[in-house]
């Protein structure tokens, strides 16, 4: 019989549970930071605009129609994103892919609308308002693009069979980030475009 030797010291092991919502929690903490940064930028924008008075963006024409449509677009994507979360929670893979696809389409439409607005408004980085205007709006645009990439990645992982009703974390994490994008746009819509 083979001789067995016990280790010199005991090493009690903790019973391991499957990783619980790691991606969801990580996304939540990261999103909190991104939201805080953008909220700070919006606050700085408002303070600087108040100090500048009536001269702020006086040379630029920024219509409200375009931002309104952008808000509606993102608002609709909130419904489709929640549809994806609801579908994966019921193992309805067909509708999960469909909902993610529509959300992506609306996200790309938002990006398109934003670039159209930039062309129309003709705010230059050289003018006083330029850096802060783009810090806020392009910062949010970058967040939306990051959200689109996140959704695409999670959609591919869903296609690979990694998510189901027992493990919907990736879709839920992407949804959390997406909702933060939408909430922030509502803030920007009011603070930057409505109040001007």
């Amino acid at each position, binding site marked *: 019989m083979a001789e067995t030797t*016990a*280790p010199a*010291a*005991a*090493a*009690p*092991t*903790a*019973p*391991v*549970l499957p*990783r*619980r*919502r*790691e991606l969801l*929690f*990580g996304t939540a*903490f*990261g999103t*909190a*930071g*991104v*939201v*805080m*940064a*953008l*909220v*700070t*930028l919006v606050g*700085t924008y408002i303070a600087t605009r108040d100090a500048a008075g009536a001269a702020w963006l006086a040379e630029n024409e920024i219509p409200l129609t375009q931002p309104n449509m952008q808000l509606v677009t993102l608002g609709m994507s909130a419904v489709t994103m929640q549809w994806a979360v609801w579908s994966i929670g019921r193992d309805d893979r067909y509708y999960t892919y469909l909902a993610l696809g529509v959300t992506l389409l609306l996200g790309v439409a938002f990006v398109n609308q934003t670039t159209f607005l930039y062309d129309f408004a003709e705010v230059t980085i050289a003018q006083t308002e330029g*850096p*802060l205007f*783009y*810090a806020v709006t392009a*910062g949010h645009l970058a967040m939306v693009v990051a959200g689109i990439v996140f959704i695409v990645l999670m959609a*591919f*992982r869903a*296609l*690979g*069979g*990694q998510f189901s009703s027992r493990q919907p974390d990736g879709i839920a994490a992407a949804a959390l980030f997406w909702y933060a994008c939408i909430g922030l746009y509502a803030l920007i819509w009011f603070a930057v475009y409505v109040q001007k």
Partner: protein
Amino acid sequence: MALTETRPDTGHGDDTVVVDRPAPTQIERLVATGDHLSNGRLQIGFSLVFLAVSALGLGLAALDRVTDDGLLGGIAEPLWASSLVGLVLMGVVPLLLGLAIYVVPLQLGSPAIAFPRAASLSMWSWLVGAVLFVTSVVLDGGVGGSDDDGARIGNLSMGLMMVALSLGAVCVATTVMSHRPLGMKLARVPFFSWSMLVAAPIWILTFASAVAHIFVGQITQADAEALSANFDAGVSWMLRSPSIYMLAIPVLGIAADVVVHLTGRRLAAYGALQGAIAAFGVLSFGAWAQSSPAGQTIIWVVFAVAAGLPLLAMLGGLGDALRRGRVPAAAALGAAVLAHLLVLGAVLAAALQALDTAGSGDLFGLGTDALEAGLFMFVVSGAALGGIAGVLHWGERIFGAPAKEALSGVAGAALLLGGGLMATVLLVESIAQAARNGLVAGVLYGAVAVGAALFLVGVLGALVAVLGAARTSHEGSPAEGGDVIGSTLEWSGRGVALPGGPSTELAAVGSPYPLLDLRDGGVPDEETK
């Protein structure tokens, strides 16, 4: 085939080309590893070095004030401001985060940290940022320097460090939330892990807000003067109360874990102490108080004064545990508990400031933020002392052997004296408005320089102590102090002797002290509620 499926084993037939890849070198393994033990150890080591560099800068700037700007000339003021930033972003926060990256997964019985590659990226990005920041200070940039390029590098490197530290904080907080073993509810999380769960979101939110201002400074292509103004308006609030208290949150957890470990007893009112740490965390959130007028509001007064209550609660809880029996003298214990007193000094300074500035102000004739320099130094010294207490306490786990007690004690005492001296003198200087009197100001800044030197000696002493421990471990010398008996899961490795023998396993975590439960043969009734 879906991308996520396991690649089929095709075997190695004669036609298979086997690529003989060279084994990665030691450095390649070090840089590419996602091992939290390796990354945490590196971050602790580098942060101690940068803490020493920052203390040196502070001492030199103070000496310059003694010599009436005769030592360093125009770079003294930027060096002072940059050293203060360095103490926070290059020293204290990364030290505590490095300790958390190492210890938190172990406390939870987890084999890895959440997002190990991100944690590794966090450490290396922070290191690059810290090196860039030191470079920018040398170029007369940093914070408040006059060289445009140097100031831009300083601004950028501050942002990089904050983003990197936030990323590390995300990994640690996620680990606590999602890597807990069976039965370990949040109410049973060890104190240090709990304190990091409280600290991480506060750090993330605070740094994110400061990074936004840094970003604005960067995209406006501002010159050195404008970047200095941008720092004063958008980032310096992070170094004032109540935000600066966020550095001390993990210290509360470290002290509680040290006391539990050394006394081997269960702390009464575990939940209440967790609540005290959480309350201190909430009261250290200061992004709302970015503008100077915020320091004259009743909310600021409430934050400044109320932060003392959870601190006193923690001290009461720890004192209760310590008075119930003999406790072995240990440098880590003394440092961890005395760190609380330094932080308490900051709260008292804040209360004084609050009394002066609340409402119409002018009670003592101080200006807004007059006491902030002393308050800052109290918190930073307390956090550094607490962090080093943690490093010494978990030194055997981190470096393979315990640090020498005598050297640790000297290091801790030097840190305490140095930090306390600097903070007290800066407080006195503000209250007495000594800047108006050149001779008195010279004497006081001489004392600050002495304090910085003592602080430097303390940090270097701690560095030598941990390096000595690592060397002892490497040489295989017998460890000082014999077997380690711990209460929480990070002690469940080498050197733990348990009555159950080598096959001992936990069915589930039933209390905050799983190893103590194993030794006691079960969970006490009051813990199961």
